[in-house]
């Protein structure tokens, strides 16, 4: 496969703040369209920074980030981003929050509203359109944030530990909802997490990061669609313990921001 066939292609990317060690130190990583990749690592390993480089929110000091073969200079409409916290606007209803990306580009059409409602339905939030974010549970807020990221029909979805603050059961329900919605829409996902089981359950391929570098890459050869009982499967646990061994060898860094 030629280099330009990759959907997202990060080539020898370096990034650092003016003082101290580089946060991202020579990472190369490529994704094909429709893939689901996870970046796994401890706090401070540079995974969130790498995600922001992939989003165009940060620009690399050296190296290049190519999206659909073109060098990425700023955030673009091809990419959707889901943050650690749902970052909803509390003065807008659920529906208006989902429509925000479109309303920043002009008045949303009735078709857009219909699409937003359909997305909310798919994510299990039917009849919540006119609620305000503070009236939703944490899991429901995360679902709204995913719907908002998908309303522009992005080809690539970047997710920065979106479920880290949720309880285990809610998190698993959201993982299933995410896999379903991305399969239906054919969205590629790059997903940052520190949770090994989450990475194995979601991803086709997992990259383990340590001190700004990718130290290990692991293909996950589990079938799709993935049923919930897969979490108790021997193959699943095998991948988890293998990744756990890699993680144990990585370093915990003092919190140096992101």
């Amino acid at each position, binding site marked *: 496969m030629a280099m330009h066939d990759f959907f997202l292609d990060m080539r020898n990317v370096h990034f650092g703040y003016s003082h101290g060690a580089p946060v991202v130190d020579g990472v190369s990583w490529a994704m094909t369209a429709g893939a689901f990749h996870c970046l796994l690592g401890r706090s401070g390993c540079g995974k969130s920074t790498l995600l922001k480089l992939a*989003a165009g*929110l940060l620009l690399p000091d050296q190296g290049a980030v190519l999206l659909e073969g073109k060098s990425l200079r700023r*955030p*673009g*409409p091809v*990419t959707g*981003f889901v*943050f*650690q*916290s749902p*970052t909803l*606007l*509390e*003065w*807008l*209803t659920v529906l208006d929050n989902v429509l*925000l*990306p479109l309303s*920043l*580009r002009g008045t949303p059409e009735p078709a857009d509203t219909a699409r937003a409602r359909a997305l909310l339905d798919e994510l299990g939030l039917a009849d919540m359109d006119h609620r*305000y*974010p*503070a*009236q939703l549970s944490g899991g429901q807020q995360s679902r709204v944030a995913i719907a908002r990221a998908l309303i522009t029909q992005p080809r690539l979805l970047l997710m920065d530990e979106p479920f880290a603050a949720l309880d285990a059961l809610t998190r698993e329900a959201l993982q299933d909802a995410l896999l379903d919605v991305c399969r239906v829409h054919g969205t590629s996902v790059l997903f940052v997490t520190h949770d090994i089981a989450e990475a194995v359950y979601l991803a086709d391929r997992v990259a383990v990061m340590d001190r700004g570098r990718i130290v290990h890459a692991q293909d996950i050869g589990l079938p799709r669609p993935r049923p919930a009982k897969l979490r108790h499967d021997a193959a699943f646990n095998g991948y988890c313990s293998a990744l756990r061994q890699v993680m144990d060898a990585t370093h915990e860094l003092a919190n140096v921001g992101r």
Partner: protein
Amino acid sequence: MRTREVMKPERNASSALRLAPSMASALVLIAVLAVWEWAVGAFGWSELVLPPPSTVTKALWSGLVSGYFWPHIMQTALEVVLGLVIGGVFGFACGLALGESTFGRHVFMPYVVASQVMPKLALAPLLTVWLGFGTLPMVAITALVCFFPLLESTMTGVSQADAARLELFRMLGATRWQTLWRLKVPIGMPSVMAGLRMAVVLALVGAVVGEFVGGSEGLGALIIAAQGSMDTPLMFAVLILITAMGLLLYLGALWVQERLLRPYAAAQSGN
């Protein structure tokens, strides 16, 4: 808003006890007025010093019925409303500008702080020299008094947007103008409203004190006139009018706040 929420269960539990505080505060007023009325008669105090409530009520009533008060009430209300609007709009606009521009903040903040520390009311004599007597200098002083609370609260408000949501707007390709109006201003709105509440109260002080210095009409001028003619009951009557006006203004500000913050309130009350 929030207090009301907290009160609700209590009201259901024992409505008799819930009524008690407002009943009690009414009783306090009645008791104070009664003691006052009685003491003036019993000790034979002069009406020049402390007129009894009955005399004050009479002065208030006759002033209202004869129409003597109304031009003064209208004058002060006009000054307060015009000053509030002009000062508030300028304060809000300058607050936005300084909130947005770090450079502007660095350049102007020392002057903003200095002019905040300076008592604006001390400018009243100067403003009468510049602008003459009448409505204009009073509006100017009121506007000046209202300007700073709005400036300060707007500036603080728009700088409260968190990094994640700013990043979200960058990700969505929002322009600077959109980020200001669709993110920073809504986030700062509760703070702006707090500034408005403060400005409303200060506006009345500004107008009345301005009239002390340079007014021929208005409630402040009326107090000075009453002082000149040793008409203490009139003075008390005017004080009651000013208090009533202040309460109305404050309630008006609460009404505006409730309307503007309705989405935020709806989020809190859960309906």
